[in-house]
């Protein structure tokens, strides 16, 4: 297992006994395992959604391929780790700080660098963001060292409790709650507020939107910052599950891209469903066919892309 491409702390599902161990309990154990996989998968998927939804908006709004998105997530993760481990800031205070800090970094980057590249060819955008990724990876390696970083969690988030005979991990439950609330909030902002309708208009047709007096660059800068902030929050929340080391942006780049390409970028529901699917499929694949590892995910992605090049749920993955 040490030879896995994507290092992850062994999930609880992987540590469970195989179902065929006791014959008498076969049925119930199978059910519990299934629930545990589902639960872990949903937690993982929601985390992926928070990490990747900023990328979906960037791609949908400006058709910008931001391969450095994971770097913002890593920034959030490390900021949270430094605050909690070195300065003793409570975990729940560190989370919003990680969000804000990543958002500010995102805003600065957008205003200073990214905005020059919106009208460049995809090759330029890819080169630029790969360069940024390399720089962030080595810079973090230099400052923080190349080993895994863990965030000290408060007592109340460790371990699991029993719910109708099913072991429920406290931390994963918290992730589901936080990410679920965030998703609801995002959906409400997008559907009900003025900013949301501006954003949707700009995604649909930037030229017409700016013709109607919507300040598209401003909308974009704010969205970019917000998306980076969410990625940072996701990085902080996910340090426990996904692992946090300097190679985070490279390891999870493909996962973010899968979420976006499969989910499409015209709605928020598309990436959300895609993340859940990816999370559950990944956890289940690792449990039932551990030999194949990440193979399942890549195959599913390629098949999906051939079957529906524009994403499973989206109208257009890229214009």
């Amino acid at each position: 297992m040490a030879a896995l491409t994507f290092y992850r702390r062994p999930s609880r599902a992987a540590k469970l006994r195989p179902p065929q161990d006791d014959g008498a309990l076969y049925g119930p154990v199978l059910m519990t395992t299934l629930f545990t996989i589902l639960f872990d998968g949903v937690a993982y998927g929601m985390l992926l959604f928070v990490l990747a939804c900023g990328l979906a908006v960037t791609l949908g709004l400006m058709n910008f391929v931001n391969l450095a998105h994971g770097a913002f997530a890593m920034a959030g993760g490390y900021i949270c780790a430094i605050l909690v481990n070195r300065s003793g800031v409570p975990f729940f205070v560190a989370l919003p700080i990680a969000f804000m800090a990543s958002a500010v970094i995102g805003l600065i980057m957008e205003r200073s660098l990214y905005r020059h590249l919106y009208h460049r060819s995809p090759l330029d955008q890819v080169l630029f963001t790969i360069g940024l990724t390399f720089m962030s990876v080595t810079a973090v390696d230099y400052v923080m060292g190349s080993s895994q970083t863990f965030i000290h969690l408060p007592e109340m988030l460790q371990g699991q409790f029993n719910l109708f005979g099913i072991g429920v991990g406290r931390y994963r439950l918290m992730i589901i709650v936080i990410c679920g609330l965030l998703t609801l909030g995002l959906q409400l902002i997008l559907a009900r507020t003025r900013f949301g309708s501006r954003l949707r208009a700009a995604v649909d047709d930037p030229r017409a939107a700016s013709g109607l007096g919507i300040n598209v660059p401003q909308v974009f800068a704010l969205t970019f910052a917000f998306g980076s902030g969410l990625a940072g929050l996701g990085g902080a929340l996910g340090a426990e599950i996904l692992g946090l080391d300097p190679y985070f942006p490279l390891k999870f780049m493909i996962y973010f891209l899968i979420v976006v390409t499969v989910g499409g970028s015209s709605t928020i529901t598309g990436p959300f469903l895609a993340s859940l699917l990816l999370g559950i499929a990944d956890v289940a694949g690792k449990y039932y066919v551990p030999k194949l590892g990440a193979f399942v995910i890549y195959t599913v992605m390629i098949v999906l892309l051939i079957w529906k090049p524009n994403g499973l749920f989206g109208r257009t993955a890229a214009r």
Partner: protein
Amino acid sequence: MNADRTVGEFALNRSRWGWSEMVFWLLAVASIFVFSDRYLILTEIAWLGLFAMSLDLILGYAGIVSLGHAAFFGVGAYTAGLLAVHGIVKEPILALLVAGLAATVLGFVTSFLVIRGSELSQLMVTLGIALLLRELANKFSNITGGFDGLQGISIDPILGLFAFDLFGKVGYIYCLVVLFVLFLLARRIVNSPFGLSLRAIRNNPLRAAAVGIPVNRRLVAVYTLSAFYAGIAGALFTQTTALASLDVFSFDRSADLLLVLVIGGTGYLYGGLIGAVVFRILQDLFSSWTPQFWQFWIGLVLVLIVLIGRERMYRGVMWLPRNFARRFGKTKPAAMSDGGAS
């Protein structure tokens, strides 16, 4: 008839050897004697140049952006390694061809996936295929040796005559000859009507289809060809270093390759070769500076190139030689304007 002849003349004019090209290859030959203590780096430049040329064939001539070109490199490398370890094909040149063909088959099969869909899904699919192969090589560690790589690769003498020596002189000459032969082939191909049709597709696929170019078939063909070249580059890597590990499929390799090609410039075949030289020198410089963190500077170079703008950078670099040519060599611009008028 008339149009055919003008296209033919145009292609012929383009395919004429200029003095700068001859100088380039003379320098390459001279490097065998001048840098006799640097054969290992020179060899690396040679296969990297071939690898970059293979990317240039699809990126510079057909406009396909690939984030997973290491897939073909890796298949070539492992094929050459396995052939040598199990003693199936002993002769290096034959093994090279077999490795190239293995990559070609993969290129042909995957080309149908790659040419569909938008640029984003092209990026995704190429990246996905490379990751998939890496995962496969990892899982079938009984065949590939997993993380440790293939053990015990020993390469027989070329044609049974020239044994690989410790200093890598034979290896370098071997790489250089293969590179030159494949370069001639690529040069012939891109200057043929086939190559011109590829350029038409890159500039505007819709218009190319409208004038009767079978766009998809041409893209499949060039993608397959490019896979062949990348496979050969991978096989050269394995044969000269006696190494084949999971690293051949890594994302970094594909990303570095993009940088190599961008440094040299796309769409004129020499870009990959010049880029390989510059990239290797830069890499050497950076790793002597900060051994562990040279990738930071590589990233910085990428960012700067994009921010400056690729076009502007080439204009800046070419300013001196052009100025020089204008002042001293009156014949060159005149010949070029002749070619344009006819």
